């Protein structure tokens, strides 16, 4: 006991002496604030893969820290502040609810760089925002669903009625209707991003009602697991490659790929060229086929070779920019032509249409929760 005590006091003393020195090394410290656990197999898991890509790329030159399960809202100020206080040079905050807290903390630490995912506020020069055009992947899913469904009923599990989710639903419906006008999409709002029990329940309800394709815009593989249990039911994975949960049911997953963006941004901090940006990458970096984007299609499966070839051709066209995800003419739910199309645009514009999308396209039944 005495030994342990004296060892403890000694190390305590050593700690006091070394903390000052430890902060002085010249490694670039990269911090991450995650909304979920890294083991969610979806959203946060993919951001953590991005963190590991940074470690792999820069090795000893960087040190990374992550905080998981950080609640969104005002409480996040504490977590983000602590990363800034402990000498991190660049901090990635990876959920929409961190937007106000990120901007609040950033204003106090002008020497620290902040990168906020899915937001639009950049109140000081040291805040950048980034987001992915996941809806490009929904187009491909729309095509596959149109040609795979036998019952012509498709269940769509949606999280919250926000632009990102609505864009996905509209992109899916538009392509679906093009190839199979008889197919009907039923959207169910579950008001959660991650709740395996609720997601599974929604998937089962769709199957019971005769749907044979399940689309999800939530983060857990629960819906895929439910589809796998019943013959003839297919599902699309979300956020990460979910093929291992649906050997006989997985069609394709939209995978979030933050790796190349994260590596680019940390490289910019290292060489001193970091500046404020607002990045929105799809399948490619520039929308014209160059670079690895933030959206990746993983593991086409359980479809014919012919359909697979068609899907991959569509993917290539979307990547190269030859095809836009939401080309004109696009009609709103009530049959009215979308404003952008009426104004003679070739496709829906990013600003303000896509970033604030709060209406359904023609063919979706029901209305957005109000």
């Amino acid at each position: 006991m005495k030994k342990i005590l004296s060892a403890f006091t000694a190390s305590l003393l050593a700690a006091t002496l070394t903390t000052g020195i430890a902060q002085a090394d010249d490694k670039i410290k990269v911090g991450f604030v995650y909304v979920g656990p890294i083991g969610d197999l979806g959203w946060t898991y993919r951001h953590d893969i991005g963190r590991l890509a940074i470690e792999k790329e820069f090795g000893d030159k960087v040190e990374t820290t992550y905080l998981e399960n950080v609640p969104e809202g005002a409480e996040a100020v504490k977590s983000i502040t602590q990363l800034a206080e402990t000498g991190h040079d660049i901090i990635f905050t990876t959920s929409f609810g961190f937007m106000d807290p990120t901007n609040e903390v950033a204003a106090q630490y002008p020497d620290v760089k902040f990168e906020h995912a899915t937001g639009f506020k950049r109140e000081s020069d040291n805040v950048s925002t980034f987001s992915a055009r996941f809806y490009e992947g929904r187009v491909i899913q729309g095509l596959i669903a149109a040609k795979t469904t036998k019952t012509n009923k498709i269940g769509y599990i949606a999280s919250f009625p926000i632009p990102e989710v609505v864009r996905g639903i509209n992109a899916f419906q538009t392509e679906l209707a093009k190839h199979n006008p008889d197919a009907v999409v039923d959207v169910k709002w579950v008001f959660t991003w991650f709740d395996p029990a609720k997601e599974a329940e929604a998937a089962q309800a769709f199957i019971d009602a005769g749907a044979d394709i399940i689309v999800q815009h939530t983060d857990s593989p629960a819906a895929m697991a439910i589809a796998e249990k019943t013959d003839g039911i297919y599902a699309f994975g979300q956020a990460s490659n979910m093929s291992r949960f649906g050997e006989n049911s997985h069609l394709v997953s939209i995978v979030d790929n933050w790796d190349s963006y994260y590596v680019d941004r940390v490289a910019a901090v290292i060489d001193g060229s970091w500046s404020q940006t607002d990045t929105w990458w799809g399948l490619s970096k520039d929308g014209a086929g160059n670079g690895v984007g933030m959206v990746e299609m993983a593991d086409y499966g359980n479809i014919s070779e012919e359909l697979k070839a068609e899907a991959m051709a569509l993917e290539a066209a979307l990547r190269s920019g030859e095809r836009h995800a939401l080309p004109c003419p696009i009609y709103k739910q009530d049959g009215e032509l979308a404003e952008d199309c009426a104004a003679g645009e070739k496709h829906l514009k990013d600003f303000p249409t896509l970033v604030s999308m709060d209406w359904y396209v023609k063919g979706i039944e029901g209305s957005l929760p109000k």
Partner: protein
Amino acid sequence: MIHLELRQNSNWWTSLRSITLALLITAAFSIAVLFLMSDKPADAIWQMLTFPWQGRRMEVQFGLVLQQAAYLAVIAIGLSVGYRANIWNIGAEGQFAFGSIGAYAAYLLIGSPDAAWAFPVLLLAGIIGGCLWALIPAFLRVTCNTNELLTSLMLVYVASHLLTYLCIGPLKGDPKAGQAETYPIADSVQASKLISGTELHTGLIVLLVAFVILAAILLFTLLGYRLKVAQHTPRAERFAGFSPNNTVWLSFAISGAMAGLAGAVYLTAETGKLIQAENYLENFGFAAIIIAFLGRLHPLGILLAALMISYVNVGASYIQASLQVDDSVAELIEVVALFAFLGCAVLDQYKVKFKRTTVRAAT
């Protein structure tokens, strides 16, 4: 054999002794946990204790501690009123939410947010909102004799769904937002910062004043005495002409008002808008229950407990950022503290005696 014997005269000395013992138990456990959870336990313990001086700016850390402590202390002292009289309001979280909703509703109604009286009106609306929501379980208890513990808890879920509903539907704000939220309130009705760069704002002064007023009432007035009587001897309460029903109404009204005030301050100072429940509520209403008991339902105790738990919480978030120690360590410490304090409180009222008194005589 050990047995407990009722103490004839428990005084400040016996209290101090049991509190010290509880603190020691908590400290020992915390050290043990940090040894298990960190690969640099000595660093972790040292930084946990001294984190305000470890980071870049000390005032930032103290700001975070005081901010959290203020919310916890104000809600906890409100709850302690009922707990002293065996009336169990565990729904402060919902009353907090309703305080925020009340303040936001007042903001929409007043129409002139630039007026000097706008901010106080918002706070008052928060108090009323929290109070009204708390009176529902009081009403059910008085009229139908329902268990207020259950009804007050269930109303938390009703309140948080209502909050989310308002944000998705009738009060929906910026369509670009990736979460359900309302439009922000004007800058003129937001609490202003006392020290730039910290979490210290005028709202915390409001909370402090509310805390002091209620503490004075409980410690020095007849009303406070009456509630104390109700705790110890319900029959004496009746003989003295106090109605138990009135005690129910009163304690729910006070605890609801305090939680509502905290909710209004939170809206004006921290978020500036209503947000869907899971991104808005921080569990202050539930954490305050622990604070109330850690503080032994005494105003001074509650204040100290709120400061201690907030210090542990912020410290845990600091070592998570600096050493990657999971911050659930804070929750563990909190729970152990609660058990240690409740357990040691027994020593206040009872003496531990060993049965074979002959042993003592022999020495």
